[in-house]
């Protein structure tokens, strides 16, 4: 029995020494940078690859607005620095799309007017990266793609491989929202055309994009009734005032109508 006692004792000691408090991992690597989602969802693991692509359309803006700036979120890894740290962006060509042209569709990323803003301020670990888009006339007919990536430099090395790039697809065209379909289409909106979409925006001041249509698709039926009442009434007013100049559906070449 004495031997049995020793066996249990040895087992107990082994188990005891095997326990150890879990210590947090400390970042000991060099300073790095990578893109990420909006700071409000930064610590949500499901959102880490969010915001990779932005769709932007000048069509929602007034016709005299020729420049628009969009922002992406950049984060540093490692301790904050006591000095400003610059970072470098470079366009990457995307096969099979119309790539945006620097100076035509967007302000070149190495243009000092914009690159001077590509700086992580001292003490900061996050920066809103501005990308300046131009409303070139070609955007009326074509959507262009601007994909850009981080380039390592003396201040910041590259972070996680999948988070080193961002992409923006932009145009001056309206894009049919996914919610413009099914019963919504048959009951309220009718067949899609950009002319109709543009009229709905001008008549209501609403974007009629996916987000707005999701709101109209909510639990209550009255909001969509209200907004479509405004749209239809506005179209009737327009048609009465412009009997020989109706708004033409670019697909059917006929005056736009709603169900």
């Amino acid at each position, binding site marked *: 029995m004495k*031997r*049995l006692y020793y*066996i249990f004792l040895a087992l107990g000691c082994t188990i005891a020494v095997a326990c150890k408090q879990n210590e947090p991992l400390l970042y000991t690597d060099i300073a790095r940078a990578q893109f990420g989602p909006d700071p409000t969802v930064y610590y949500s693991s499901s959102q880490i690859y969010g915001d990779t692509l932005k769709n932007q359309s000048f069509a929602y803006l007034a016709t005299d607005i020729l420049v628009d700036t969009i922002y992406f979120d950049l984060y540093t890894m490692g301790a904050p620095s006591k000095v400003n740290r610059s970072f470098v962006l470079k366009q990457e060509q995307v096969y099979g799309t119309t790539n945006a042209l620097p100076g035509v569709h967007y302000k070149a990323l190495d243009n000092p007017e914009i690159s001077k803003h590509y700086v992580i301020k001292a003490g900061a670990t996050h920066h809103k990266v501005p990308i300046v888009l131009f409303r070139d006339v070609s955007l009326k007919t074509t959507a262009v793609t601007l994909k850009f990536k981080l380039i390592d430099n003396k201040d910041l090395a590259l972070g996680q491989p999948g988070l080193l790039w961002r992409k923006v697809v932009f145009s001056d065209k309206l894009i049919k929202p996914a919610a413009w379909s099914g019963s919504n289409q048959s009951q309220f909106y009718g067949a899609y055309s950009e002319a109709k979409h543009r009229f709905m925006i001008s008549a209501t001041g609403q974007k009629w994009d996916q987000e707005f249509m999701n709101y109209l698709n909510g*639990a*209550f*039926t*009255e*909001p*969509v*009734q*209200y*907004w*479509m*009442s*405004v749209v*239809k*009434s506005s179209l*009737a*007013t327009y*048609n*009465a005032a412009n009997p020989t100049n109706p708004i033409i559906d670019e697909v059917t070449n006929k005056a736009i*109508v*709603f169900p």
Partner: protein
Amino acid sequence: MKIFNINRQVANIFFVLFLFIFSACEKYKPVYQYSENEKITATGLEALYQVTSGNDVLTIDPTISSNKTGDLKCVWGIYETNTQGTNPVMDTLARTKKLEYKVNRSAKDWYLMLRVTNSRTGYSQYFKSTVRVGTIYTRGWYIPKDDGSQTDMDFFATPATSSMPSNNTKIENVYSLMQGKKLEGKAIMLSFFVNFKSMVNGSYVSTRSLSLVSEKDVSMMDLSNLQVYRNFDNIFQAAPTPRKMDVVTTDFLKYFLINNGQLYSMVGQGYSEGIFGGRKLLTSNDNPYHLSKHQIIPSAGTAYFFDEMSSAFYAGTDRSLYLGAVTINTARLDNNPVTPASAAATNKKLIYMGNKVYGSSGGGAPGGYVIFQDKTNPTIKTMYQVGSAGPNGLTLNAGVTISTASKLFNATHYGLLFGDENLLYFSSGKEIYSYNLNSNTEQLQYTVPNDEEITFIRHRKLTGADAYNYVMIGTQSGQNYKVRLFNKTTGNLNTEPSVTLTGKGRPVDALYVSPTVTTELVYSYTF
């Protein structure tokens, strides 16, 4: 005899293993039990309790027992009925067998739950009762009125045992008393809704509500406390202009609102936030229209409206953005067919239209009556019985040309008997007449004193615990009003009113509410 030659160390290992295996064994517990199931009973619980919030103490001391031995523990809770989008949360009221609860809930139906648990067996049984909560405002008569420019209402509380009002229980100007101000504009109407949605604790719930409508505003009030939760500024998706309220009405499945002759609708049974949708259009060209304040609203059927501009009927729903054209399928006037039938309404001004009964389809009783006046020749007035003929059609039958010599020709106020005798009450000067819709004869019923002006005629009735059946006549004399509530015998008014309510202002209606009114379908929502 030694069968296996193993050393002592190996034997010890086997011994340890055996200990592990032994400790892993568990005593078998049979799955099946053949003993009698436990049954807990509680007696002394009523199916329904009617209480007044802020006043009554709900005292219940049930007798509880179980067919198994053990100590029985009680928990009382209360939770809301009819919530939308959220599960109701139960509030614990007591953990004693005897419940003594000072009721402080809003006026509506609640579920009272008693859970009895046998602490020895762990078995619990639940018992549920309905608690119908009222407040001092949930039982009595309301009289909407105005002073010529602003609207208010008086309240005449009634006891739990009777719907008979008394001037001794009057709370004058109860609307402005609770809100601190009156509604702008003259009084139009007052309605009671059971299911209008209001936000309570973050979710929309069916709320027993009063709807007070003036020329320039509307107030949706929680009947519990008369607090306003919607008004003209937030009862629309965007408040329209001008502010010119006509009516708020319902057919149970949907609500309708007419402002400046324009129709708005809202879901009545289903998800709603208590906000009306967009203005309905007549056509895709948005042709102008102006609906009469009079409609025929069958229960959950086609609601008929009348466009005063085109002299045509239209149907309204809560789903379509458009008013639906309604065809007059047949029309008969003075025993002759009107050809085409649509001519019965062509170039006509609608003088009066109201519900006779709710149900009208399937060849049943007529839905209502309409009185027209010719726009070109005002001496021509006609009256028809309105019947439903499918979702997009109606009939105008039993039409009569109203003689210029008749009292009905010069009538100023109308009141159809809702569901009772086939009579139309109306006023002519100081006199109240009944018009027999079967024999087309008139009969003087009552004459108001010379110094009084008749302001409304209304028939309302209720069956059940708070039963009443009154033809009500409102009058104004100077700054004061009288509302006479007449019982009737075979359609004729009794010689004297059962009670006369008095107050200040110009009354436009009298409406009784009580916890026993649990559906919108007891009253007509037309004038």
